[in-house]
């Protein structure tokens, strides 16, 4: 069931997507160029920059850490963020109005300051292990997406449906999972994607919260760039994009990316 779209709208949107995609071809071209520096259009064709990534062990170990942290951090943020978003929308009257703004703070505070403060007052102060602080730092970093983006979907949700289900004897948790969640799945998926990408690309927080033996991919990329100027980094970007397609496929299979187009 679709409403008609004005052709001009479709034209503008197509142009926007074209512009969003264009630089990616440049990056893909640079990643397969048979030159030891970034160039476009590519000169020759090689996959050696891709194999180069796998030859450098640090890329592999940091990529694993980054993926773990991004998945776990996003999962934890959604686990505590969705209930918070629900409470903020459902019990507007009974919660103080400032509370919803608390969840924007991780975005308001410049990341580098957050990273520095966390290291100074948490890692050193509480003597937590490096990995734990890094994970909690990332959870905090992506929490705003979980709370605010899911909250935006909940804002247009009609809670009387839920009330009806509960009054018919359905337990609250089951009602939430079967009635509320399907209606806000678009928001949850959007929040998941945004959070995951924010986490996997994060530099400032990781800068301070990584430590001996624990490092993330962006930090490794930066280290590589300080000394080498070859297209390896462009290949890493390409692989990250392929990874996203993979993640999206998983999301599609489990939550449904198409948001149950009715």
């Amino acid at each position: 069931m679709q409403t008609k779209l004005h052709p001009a709208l479709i034209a503008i949107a197509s142009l926007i997507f074209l512009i969003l995609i264009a630089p990616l071809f440049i990056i893909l071209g640079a990643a397969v160029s048979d030159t030891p520096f970034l160039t476009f259009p590519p000169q020759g064709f090689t996959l050696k920059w891709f194999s180069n990534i796998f030859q450098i062990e640090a890329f592999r170990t940091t990529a694993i850490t980054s993926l773990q942290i991004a998945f776990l951090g996003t999962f934890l943020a959604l686990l505590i963020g969705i209930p918070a978003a629900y409470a903020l929308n459902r019990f507007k009257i009974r919660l103080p109005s400032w509370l919803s703004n608390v969840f924007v703070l991780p975005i308001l505070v410049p990341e580098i300051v957050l990273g520095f403060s966390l290291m100074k007052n948490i890692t050193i102060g509480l003597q937590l292990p490096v990995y734990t602080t890094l994970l909690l730092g990332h959870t905090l970093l992506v929490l705003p997406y979980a709370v605010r983006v899911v909250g935006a979907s909940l804002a247009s949700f009609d809670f009387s449906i839920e009330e009806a289900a509960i009054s018919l004897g359905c337990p609250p948790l089951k009602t939430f999972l079967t009635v509320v969640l399907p209606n806000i799945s678009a928001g949850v998926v959007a929040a998941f994607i945004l959070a995951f990408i924010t986490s996997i690309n994060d530099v400032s927080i990781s800068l301070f919260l990584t430590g001996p033996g624990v490092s993330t991919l962006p930090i490794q990329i930066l280290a590589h760039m300080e000394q080498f100027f070859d297209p390896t980094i462009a290949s890493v970007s390409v692989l990250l994009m392929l990874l996203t397609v993979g993640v999206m496929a998983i999301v599609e299979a489990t939550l449904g990316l198409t948001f149950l187009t009715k």
Partner: protein
Amino acid sequence: MALGIVMAGTFGAAAQAKTLTISWWGYNGDKLNANIIEPFKKICGCDIVFETGNNADRLNKLKLRDGKGVDVIYLTDSFSQIGIAEGLFQKVDPAKLPNLADLYDIAKNPQGGYGPAYTIGRVGIVYDSAKVNPPITSWNDLWRADLKGAVTLPGITTTAGPMVVLQAGKNAKVDAFSDADKAFESIGKLKANVAKNYNTGSEMVNLVSTGEAKVAVTQDFTLASLKAAVPTMTWAQLSDGDIATLNTVNIPKGSENVELAYQFINFILSKEIQQIEAEQGVDAPVSTKVQLTPEQAKIWTYGADMISKLNRLDYVKLNQAKTDWIDRWNEIFSK
């Protein structure tokens, strides 16, 4: 529950008797592993973990931890000087580093009793000989009228940035430390020739390869990449000389494995390691015992002759002036 699994993974690694923690950049990890880490592990029977990141990040973290957490820290000399000023390192006992005796004098004790240098480099000017005529032969050539909008300088916050200020002082015939006004007047005149200042080597290589810049003030390790991008890029033979940069190793004051750290530093200064690293294109040697073929030496700052011609910077003065210089530099370039 997922958290529990991860935690188990991190605590599961049983603590070994001895673990040496090394803080360093993190590039060239595989060659470092093959040439240095694996052989050293065999000698010491210990475990080795790394903390990686660039100079500023790692030094900031060491300061936050009050000099604890790592046993050996690799830094470029401009940053190790900050670490010394902040009181983060131990003084080095030369008796524990027998291999010091084989090093060039410049590397033995570059910073008043602290860590030695394990490799050496230089900062100079690289230009496109096909487009820049006459060739560049002095730091003063940067101000030439024909180079309008063609130069890329290192940003003031990079290792080589403040060196530009010192040369600007010389251009105005003053010492930049005592007469910053005049030096920055010169920098102001240079602004017309600057396309963009860079903060990382890759940024600079991109600027040159895309034709935004034809002249760059840079460290020697970038030359190979510049030549790959633009074959006519040439290292300028400057009458007033290049500037030395050293990479140092220090033992932080909070190190818990001091003896092991000395053993490690002595190991990387040995002739064998210095030779392998130089032959494989990892680091230029500072051991006088290392012999390289002209072909191998081509990319390095190598040999008594070349090393004696380099200018050394006074980093103590530099670090005192740096905050003020950064402001003045921004005043010129960010308005």
